[in-house]
């Protein structure tokens, strides 16, 4: 499925996008992801603009240092992912497996921290539903904050989780020796997805935690 050239080599089609199908497909899929996160982040921006008083100052409710650290973890996972890709382009099977495993661990750690953060916040009364959060923090009717926060970070977390599951699959195939220096499509599109999710987090972190 994920051979860079083999599937089309015998057909000599038109030049097209000059990248192989699976990779092009992944890019196109990511465009739709951009629009999906536009809907969520856009709603947040708009609701916050309309009701600024519902949203707490940076750091007042959310734990910025913890999440900054978590952001760093995700960035590390991006570099390990790209190392895995670089390894297999050189035919380095060991490097591929090693860096994939590192990426999986970092990703899992990220999700773990996020779940931990949710639990702490929920214990403080910060939940997506109306009213409750107002009680705990004496910010009246601040339901919009909770709703947007959990929806955005939750969907991002879901994306990371799906990414981790796919990465296990890639790792399994790597173990079977399915990838090589001229057959690394699966690793590459896995990377594209992973970096995209990282990219979204970079935006989310700034908008949700810092502004």
């Amino acid at each position, binding site marked *: 499925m994920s051979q860079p050239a083999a599937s089309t080599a015998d057909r000599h089609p038109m030049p097209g996008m000059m990248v192989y199908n699976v990779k092009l497909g992944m890019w196109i899929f990511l465009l739709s992801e951009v629009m999906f996160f*536009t809907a969520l982040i856009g709603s947040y921006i708009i609701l916050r603009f309309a009701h600024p008083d519902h949203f707490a100052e940076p*750091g007042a409710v959310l734990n910025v240092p913890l999440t900054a650290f978590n952001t760093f973890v995700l*960035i590390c996972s991006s570099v390990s992912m790209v190392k895995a890709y670089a390894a297999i382009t050189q035919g380095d099977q060991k490097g591929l497996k090693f860096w994939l495993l590192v990426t999986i661990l970092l990703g899992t750690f990220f999700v773990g921290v996020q779940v931990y953060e949710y639990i702490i916040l929920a214990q403080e009364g910060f939940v997506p539903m109306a009213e409750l959060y107002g009680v705990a923090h004496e910010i009246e009717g601040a339901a919009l904050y909770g709703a947007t926060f959990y929806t955005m970070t939750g969907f991002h977390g879901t994306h990371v989780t799906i990414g981790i599951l796919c990465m296990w699959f890639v790792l399994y195939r790597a173990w079977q020796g399915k990838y090589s220096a001229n057959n690394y499509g699966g690793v590459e599109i896995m990377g594209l997805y992973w970096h995209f999710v*990282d*990219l979204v987090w*970079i935006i989310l972190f700034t908008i949700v935690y*810092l502004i």
Partner: protein
Amino acid sequence: MAGNGEEPRYFLIWFILFVLTMAEVGYAFLALPQWLLATGLILMALWKALLVAIYYMHLKWEPKRLWILAASPLPLAVILVIAVLTEF
């Protein structure tokens, strides 16, 4: 593809991303007017996002038409948000 002999300096990018993240967190808590904070933070975030897209998603080594494709939804996102913002 990235492969032309030398490997791109992935760790350098990683380091810049790390520094930018630290800078963002520091900047966010400065006593500056809100608009200045927001613009500065957004600029830094976009910078980081671009670094990821260009180097880690290796757009730098892709044909130009893929660039255009990748950028195509961004105007739509801007149109939607700006238009609706004028409502409130």
